[in-house]
């Protein structure tokens, strides 16, 4: 009983108060307070996410789950970046450099460590190339998929195909050299595209409003892990 009623009551009261503060200026302090709380909670959520990540991968390693070796990479990268981040942020290497004689072996070691544990350099030279490469591969798969699957089998598919080809042409300099292509592209994006998007957005907006009301009134309870 308590497990169900108390969260529903908190949700209802919080919803009503946050809704009313939009219309009752003296209640604005509640909104400001709620913002502070929510920011603190989201920072804690980040920490909980970190704990969860470590737990999931530790369990995988313990159970020797399929592809468990990748968990070593994840945990190693996590620890490495945390250490690199802290050492860089708190200027540890600057302090170590100050304590070393110029040209000494100690200074050489500190310089080598500084380069190996430079947070920003690791990010720029490891993470960016890896993620950008993964994303760039899409160009190859899209080209292959378009060649194989994009067929004018129905009227709707033909319409989509023609519109897509015009927009693809109209978005690049070579296509814009063809008279009229740029203008048709702008029209497609400004008129039919915008009309369709507006319809979708209004629908989504109404859906969000009704779902919010259902949550506040306790009709929608799936967030509590229950169906009714």
């Amino acid at each position, binding site marked *: 009983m308590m497990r169900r009623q108390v969260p529903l009551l908190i949700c209802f009261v919080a919803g009503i108060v946050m809704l009313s503060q939009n219309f009752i200026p003296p209640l604005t302090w509640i909104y400001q307070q709620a913002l502070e709380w929510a920011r603190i909670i989201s920072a804690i959520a980040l920490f909980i996410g970190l704990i969860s990540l470590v737990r999931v991968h530790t369990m995988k390693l313990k159970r020797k789950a399929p592809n468990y070796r990748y968990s070593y990479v994840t945990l190693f990268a996590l620890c490495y970046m945390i250490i690199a981040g802290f050492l860089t942020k708190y200027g540890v290497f600057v302090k170590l450099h100050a304590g070393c004689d110029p040209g000494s072996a100690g200074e050489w070691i500190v310089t080598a460590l500084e380069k190996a544990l430079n947070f*920003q350099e690791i990010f720029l030279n490891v993470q960016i190339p890896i993620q950008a490469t993964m994303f760039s591969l899409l160009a190859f798969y899209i080209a292959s998929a378009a060649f194989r699957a994009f067929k004018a089998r129905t009227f709707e598919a033909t319409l989509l195909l023609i519109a897509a080809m015009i927009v693809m042409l109209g978005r690049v300099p070579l296509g814009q050299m063809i008279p009229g292509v740029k203008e048709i592209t702008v029209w497609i994006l400004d008129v039919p595209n915008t009309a369709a998007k507006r319809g979708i957005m209004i629908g989504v907006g109404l859906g969000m409003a009704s779902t919010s009301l259902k949550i506040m009134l306790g009709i929608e309870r799936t967030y509590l892990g229950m169906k009714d």
Partner: protein
Amino acid sequence: MKFLFFLLQMDRRIVFVLVALAVVAPLIMPLNLPIVVGDKVRRLYDAIDQLPPRSRPVLVSVDYDPSTVPELQPMTLAVLRHCFSKEVPVIVTTMFPTGAGLARDAMETVAKEYPNLSYGTDYAYMGYKPGYSLVILGIGENFQATYPSDGYGTPSSKLPILKNVKNYDDIAIMVDFTASAAYEVWIMFAHQKYGCKVGAGVTAVMASDAYPYLNSGQLEGLLGGLSGAAEYEKLIGAPGTATIGMDAQSIAHILIIVLIILGNVAYFATRRHREPAQTATPQQGGSA
């Protein structure tokens, strides 16, 4: 007919090689195709260009991760260069944890080109703050409470650029660069709730989603994909990686269009010659 059947059964690796050639060849031998500036890009350019030197700062939010760097980093750099060249103060932030390094890199890259401008007075990097929409709302209530220190750990109270920044009223315009729906959150809260002008730079596939906001006036201007970045580079007179990339993108787009046309010609021309079962589900077995 043989050629058409060959096209239908063409190994996808041939397509991969053609795409690679279409992308690499123009980078080695640039075509220098003319860039035509569109209305949406010009609107954002004008909104920033009309700001006087030492005006209220421009807030730039780098809300993307490294996967979309080739498309979004050139437009971030172009907008930062525009602000720096006009001596318009810039505050750089990010709502993405992986955007922190990119935001810092973009700001430091452009800052090196303008040694006359100083950190803390003309530009500042506020780093990453968790909370996303809460941070956007928080800026509207109290900027310095939301960002007690900058991305390097310096207290915000010690940064002259933030001295007069209390909330969105003190921001001339905010520009969000993103590969997600982050710009919609900025529109919903920063623009609708607090009246801040919002501009956006998004990936090409997302640009069409932003058009309704442009037509309604909720977005000041829009940079869509690499072409948007190239157009902005042209406006500021500083061609960069986006301008170079447009040649490659042109050829790649033409190649994909040619491939689609060839695929359709081959499919329809050989339809009668193929078995009924194959006609019903052509090429379904092959992966992309």
